[in-house]
C-alpha cells in the first residue's frame, strides 16, 4: 500500500518535471538558426520561392512562435505528438517504430555490461594482486579508453569481412523475411556486434567500480563479524559484501540508463541499427522540430521511469533506505 502511494506520488511529481522539459525544449529548439523548409529546399538543389513559401505554410512555420507554441501545447494535452512534415508521417508512429530496436539494443547491452562487469569486478577483487586481477584491470582499462565507433568498425572488419561470422550491419537480413524463430536468430546475429560495442565501455566501468567497492566493503567491521560467526567465505561474499557493494553500481547504472539512449547514436550509426538515436540526429540536422520534440518527450518520460525503478531497487537491496 505504502509502495503504491509512493509510486503515485513520484509519478505526480514527474508531471511538472516533464512539462518543464517540454516547454524548455520547445524554446531551446527554436533558438537554432535555419528551418526545415530551407534544409529540404537545400537537399532539393534548387527550389522556387513559391515552393519554399508553400513548405513553410505546410509546416506551420509562417505562424508566430506564440501560435506555434499554443498549438503544440494543445496537441500535447491530447497526448498527440504531432506530425513530421519532412517524413510525411505522424511523429508517434516514427518514434514507436524505432523505439523497440533501441530498447532491444539498450537492454541487451545493459545486461551484458552489468552481469559481466559485476562478475569480473568480483573476480578481480577476490584475487587482488594476482594475475587475474592484473588481466581484468588491464582489459577494462583498454575497453574504457577505446572509442565505441572505432571498436565497432574494427569488429566489422574482423568478424564480418575477414571471418564472415556475422553480418556487417542492419537489424535483420534484408529481403530474407524470416518468420518465427528464424527471425529471432537472425536478429540475434545482427545484435551481437552493436550490443558488445555498446556494452564494452560500461562493462569496463562497472568492473572497475565493483572491484573498488568490494575491496572497500571487505575491510568493514560487519565482514569481520560475519567471519567470526563462522560463515563460509562464499556466504560472506554473496550475503554481505556483494549486497552492499551493489548499491553504487545501481546508482551508476541508473544514471547511465539515461545516457545509453543518447550514447547509442554512435553505435547505431556504425551498425546501421534503426534506432531512436539516428532518428534524433536526423531530426536535429533537418530541423524536424515536431519529431525532435517528440523524441525529447519520450526520452524524458523514460528517464523519469528509470529513476523511479532505480529507487525501488535500492529499497530491496538495502532495507535501511526508506521510501
Amino acid at each position, binding site marked *: 500500500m505504502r509502495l503504491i502511494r509512493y509510486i503515485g506520488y513520484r509519478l505526480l511529481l514527474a508531471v511538472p518535471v516533464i512539462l518543464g522539459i517540454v516547454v524548455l525544449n520547445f524554446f531551446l529548439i527554436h533558438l537554432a538558426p*535555419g528551418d526545415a523548409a530551407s*534544409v529540404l529546399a537545400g537537399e532539393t538543389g534548387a527550389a522556387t520561392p513559391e515552393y519554399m513559401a508553400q513548405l513553410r505554410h505546410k509546416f506551420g512555420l509562417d505562424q508566430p512562435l506564440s501560435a506555434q507554441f499554443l498549438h503544440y501545447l494543445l496537441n500535447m494535452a491530447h497526448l498527440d505528438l504531432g506530425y513530421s512534415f519532412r517524413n510525411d508521417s505522424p511523429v508517434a508512429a516514427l518514434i514507436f517504430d524505432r523505439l523497440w530496436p533501441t530498447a532491444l539494443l539498450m537492454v541487451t547491452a545493459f545486461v551484458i555490461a552489468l552481469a559481466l562487469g559485476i562478475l569480473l569486478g568480483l573476480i578481480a577483487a577476490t584475487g587482488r594482486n594476482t594475475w587475474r586481477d592484473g588481466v581484468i584491470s588491464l582489459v577494462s582499462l583498454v575497453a574504457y579508453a577505446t572509442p565505441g565507433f572505432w571498436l565497432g568498425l574494427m569488429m566489422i572488419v574482423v568478424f564480418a569481412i575477414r571471418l564472415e561470422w556475422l553480418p556487417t*550491419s542492419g537489424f535483420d537480413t534484408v529481403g530474407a523475411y524470416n518468420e518465427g524463430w528464424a527471425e529471432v536468430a537472425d536478429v540475434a546475429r545482427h545484435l551481437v556486434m552493436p550490443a558488445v560495442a555498446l556494452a564494452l565501455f560500461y562493462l569496463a566501468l562497472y568492473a572497475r567500480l565493483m572491484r573498488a567497492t568490494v575491496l572497500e566493503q571487505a575491510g568493514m567491521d560487519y565482514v569481520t563479524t560475519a567471519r567470526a560467526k563462522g560463515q563460509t567465505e562464499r556466504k560472506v561474499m554473496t550475503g554481505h559484501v556483494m549486497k552492499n557493494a551493489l548499491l553504487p553500481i545501481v546508482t551508476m547504472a541508473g544514471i547511465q540508463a539515461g545516457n545509453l539512449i543518447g550514447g547509442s547514436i554512435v553505435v547505431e550509426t556504425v551498425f546501421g541499427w534503426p534506432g531512436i538515436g539516428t532518428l534524433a540526429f536526423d531530426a536535429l540536422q533537418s530541423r524536424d522540430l515536431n519529431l525532435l520534440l517528440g523524441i525529447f518527450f519520450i526520452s524524458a518520460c523514460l528517464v523519469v521511469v528509470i529513476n523511479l525503478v532505480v529507487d525501488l531497487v535500492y529499497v530491496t537491496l538495502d532495507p535501511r533506505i526508506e521510501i
Partner: protein
Amino acid sequence: MNSIKMSRRTALSLPFGLAAMHGARAADTPRRGGTMVMIVHPEPSTLAHYAVSAGNIPPIATQIYEGLVTYDWDLNPQPNLAKSWQIAPDGKTITFKLQENVTFHNGKPFTSADVQFSFMEVLKKYHPTAPVILSEVYAVETPDPLTAVLRLNNPAPYIMKALAGRDLPIVCKAVFEGTDILNNPTANKPIGTGPFKFGQWDRGQAIRLDRNPNYWKPGLPYLDRIVARFIPDAATRSAAMETGEAHFAAYSAVNYADLARMKKNPILGETSKGYEMTPAISVLELNSKHPHLDKKEVRQAIAYAIDRKFIVDNVMYGYGVPATGPLSRKFAKAGFYTTDVRKFDVPDRLDIANKLLDSAGAPRGEGGVRFGLHLEVNSFGEQWLRQAEYLKQALAQIGIDVTLRSEDTATWLRRVYTNYDYDINEPFLSQGVDPVIGLNRQYLSSQIRKGVTFVNDSFYSNPEVDNLLLSAMREPDHDKRAAMYVKVQQILTEDCPLVWLVDVEYVSIYNKKLHDHTTGPLGTQQAFERTWMEA
C-alpha cells in the same frame, strides 16, 4: 571523355564483358527472379517524388513512377509512356501519343487525363524545379484518352530533355484529385505505372519494392524485388558491398577513400556511367557586396590562385575533371559547352593573380597579408572540409587570409542564402538536363532572391547575360541557341562572379552477379526493369 562518347552498343555490352571474365557460366541471357539490394544514402525522408526532388528519392521513386520518355546514351528521347511525339514547327505545340494498356498499381488505366493532371495540377504547382521546366506550358489538352497535347506560350526546347520519370513523373489522377496534394496518403506508399510496386518501408533500415506482375512491358522486370538499404556510416556501407550483402551503390554512396581497396575485390566492379544526365560542378560563390570581392580583378585572382588538378587528385581521389567555366563538360554532347574562354589553369597563374591584386589596390601588408575572408564550409560531407582546408592554403599564397567556418546544414544555408552574411561560399551545384536550369538560377539578376537556396547569391547582375539567357531559353533553333550559351560562358569567365572548381564525376559500385544495372544516362535514377541477377 571516352566514357561519354562510348556508343550505346559498347556501353550495353560492358557489364556482360566483365561478367564473362568473372563467372564461368555467366550466361548473357537474363534470368527471372532474385532480390537486388542497393545502398541509398542518406535515407530519403519522403517518397513524395512529385513534390520533393532531393537526390536520394529517384533511385527508389523512378522504379514506381515513370515518365513519358526515357533517354538513350546519346541523350535522345526514347518511347516510354509516350509511344511517339510530334513538335509543331513553331515549337509551341507538342503532341504525345500514349502507350495503350498501361495500368497504375491500383488497377486504374493510364490515360491522357493523368498526364494533364500530373503536369498542370501536381508538378507545375508543387514540384521544386518542374515549374521552371513547365513555365511556358499553359495547357495540356486531351482530345482522346491516348493523346496529350502540350500548349506553350513560347518554344521551350529544354522540355524534351526533362520528360523522364526523374524530372516529370506521371502520377495517377484518381489518387490525387480532390485531395490536399501535399498531404496525400500515398506520399510514402507511392502508386505509379512502373516495373516495381511499393512494398514496405522499415524506417531507418530499408524500403522494399516488389515486382509489378502487370507491368505493361511484356516479360519485364526480371527481378522479384529491390531492397534499398540505408546505412548511415560510410565504412559500414563499404563493408556491406565487400561482403556481398548489398549489390549496388550509386552516387558515391561509397567513400572515395575506400574505392582503391574495393577495386581489388574480385566480386565488385565499378563504373562511372549512368551520370551523363546529372552534370554538377563544385564552385566558390563570391559575395560581391564585400568591398574587395566587388572588383573583377580580385575575383579573377582567386580563380587563378587555385590548383584545380590538386583538388581533383587529392580531395576527390581522381573522380572529376577541373572545371573550365560555368557549364559542365557533359553539355559538350549537346553542343553547348565551350573551352574557348579565359583559362585559369595556366603555368604562371600565381604571378597573374598577384599582379591582379596589386592593380586592384589590395597591397600586401604585415606578414604578406592583403586582406582576410571567411569561407563557409559546405556541410554535405567531409570532402568539402578537406577542399576548404586546401583553399585556405591556396589563397594564402596570394596574400588572402581565409578563415574557415563549419556549421550544420540549416545554419549554413540560413547564413548564406537568407542573411547573406558570408564572403566565400563553397556549394556544389547540380546543373539539370539543360543549361537553362543551372545557368538561369545562378546568373540571372532576377534570381537574386533572399531566402531561396542555391540561386544567385553573389549579386551578379549583367544586363547582357540576362538578355542572352532569356533569349536562349526561347530559341527553337539549336545552333543559334548554342551560340548564345557559348557567349554567356565567355562573359561569365571574364566577370568571374563565381570560381568554378571541379566538374564532378560520380561512381557506381556493383556486385558482378548483377547485370544490366546501368542501362541509360540517368543510371540509378531510372527504372531497373532490365536488371537481372545470376543465381
